[in-house]
């Protein structure tokens, strides 16, 4: 683990063509890191994320991705992700290959990756058409009961980026609140980068079972205050719900989208 600034962390750990997972389940979505990836002009990324959310809508709209692995691609409580739809429906700004799963499958694939397994087994996809359009979904018989179980490949992204509340001086990272699949994504990845709100001398009194990622399991820790905005950081700032609603208008048209990105991300 080394402490890096955001520019250097992305420059060193995110390469063109990489399989990249930026996780954060509504909470702690690493927007600052996603914006830095856009600014550095990465291309041909395979983006993995359960809920692409606004951050992948922005990355897809700016042409960083050639492939998306996901399970729910909407703007929560608002509607569509227009940039994602434009890429899938009309190939703008370029064609986007999609590998589509259910939430349960994605969660299991991350968990299996963290556990060093080649694949994940679960009771899933029964009666759904999804296995017909996703070749990564297979079925295996339980050797004891004969029950047919779903099996998907483990996720082993080249790099995972997650956002957390705090790191201590050694680079250990504490995550609190809705922890989503961040721990699994970080442990499943070959390189794990964590952006944090702040670095503290020590975590102080805490639950013996606090969710902590040891420094030695990480590649880089980056101090990025408000690095999850417009998502939120439990204990630091609230979700900017108004922006999620406003995004519907901003992203609906290519030009308004590009203008907003130019003014707010690229500048």
């Amino acid at each position, binding site marked *: 683990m080394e402490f890096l600034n955001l520019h250097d962390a992305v420059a060193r750990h995110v390469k063109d063509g990489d399989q990249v997972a930026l996780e954060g389940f509504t909470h702690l979505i690493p927007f600052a890191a996603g914006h830095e990836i856009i600014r550095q002009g990465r291309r041909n990324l395979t983006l993995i994320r359960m809920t692409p959310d606004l951050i992948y809508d922005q990355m897809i709209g700016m042409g960083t991705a050639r492939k998306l692995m996901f399970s729910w691609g909407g703007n929560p409580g608002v509607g569509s992700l227009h940039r994602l739809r434009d890429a899938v429906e009309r190939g703008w700004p370029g064609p986007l290959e999609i590998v589509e799963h259910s939430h349960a499958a994605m969660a299991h694939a991350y968990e299996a990756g963290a556990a060093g397994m080649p694949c994940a087994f679960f009771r899933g996809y029964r009666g*759904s058409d999804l296995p017909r359009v996703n070749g990564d979904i297979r079925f295996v018989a339980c050797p004891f009961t004969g029950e047919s179980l779903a099996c998907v490949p483990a996720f082993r992204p080249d790099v995972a980026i997650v956002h957390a509340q705090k790191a201590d001086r050694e680079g250990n990272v504490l995550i609190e609140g809705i922890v989503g699949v961040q721990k699994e994504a970080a442990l499943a990845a070959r390189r794990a980068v964590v952006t944090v709100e702040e670095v503290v001398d020590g975590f102080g009194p805490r639950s013996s079972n606090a969710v902590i990622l040891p420094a030695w399991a990480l590649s880089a820790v980056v101090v990025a205050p408000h690095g999850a905005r417009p998502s939120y950081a439990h204990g630091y700032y609230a979700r900017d719900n108004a922006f999620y609603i406003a995004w519907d208008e901003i992203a609906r048209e290519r030009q308004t989208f590009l203008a907003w990105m130019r003014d707010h991300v690229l500048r």
Partner: protein
Amino acid sequence: MTYTAAEMMTVAAARALRDGDICFVGIGLPSAACNLARLTHAPRIHLIYESGTLGTRPDVLPLSIGDGELCETALTTVAVPEVFRYWLQGGRITVGFLGGAQVDRFGNLNSTVIGDYTKPKVRLPGSGGATEIATGCGEIFIVMRHGARSFVKQLDFLTTLGHGRTGRERRELGIRTKGPVLLVSDLCIMRPDPETSEMVVTSLHPGITCRRVCENTGWDARFAQTVAETEPPAAAELEVLRDLHARTARAHGTAVASE
């Protein structure tokens, strides 16, 4: 007391929940229905959101499935893989809410695409948790607005299993959960026929005719032998629901979350 179609739907769905139910809650109307039930006849209902919040008691409705409010008012919050493994797949959830862009006569749902999968006319959000919620929860409540384009003869894509394309798939696949036992729309309430598992109209909302339902259903809608009239929302129910929405609007600076 006047009320909207959304209020009728929310109240009808809320009434179907039993005190003590363990609900897997989605955002939007299901969230309103579950919390309405919790604040009225089902104080001991337990709400689980797929973001990992167990036993949450939000004071306002979440705009997203992972709002801070859900975590702050929860008994505890677990990781997402655990929600799907120990709590959903573990068979602990009694009721799950689902909806979609399309539903067919057997309660199968499409939330993936309109048109061809490889060249979609409309790319929808996708499964999210639905595919496993449909088979993991003891029962499924479907909440959707009626319309000939959403209540269809033939789904463009079967994202989420209801009773299957023939009504017999659940048994054939060895699935022991019940699947869709209730469908609440803005026009009526439908429940599965005990023989065929086809969703049939069991109750019409006040002022709604069979004809209106038929015109807004893409298949030949069937009706139970005795079709009841849905009890309109009571003043007490509307008061609690509207307070909930008002609090929510103040908190989010919008009413979007309310549906």
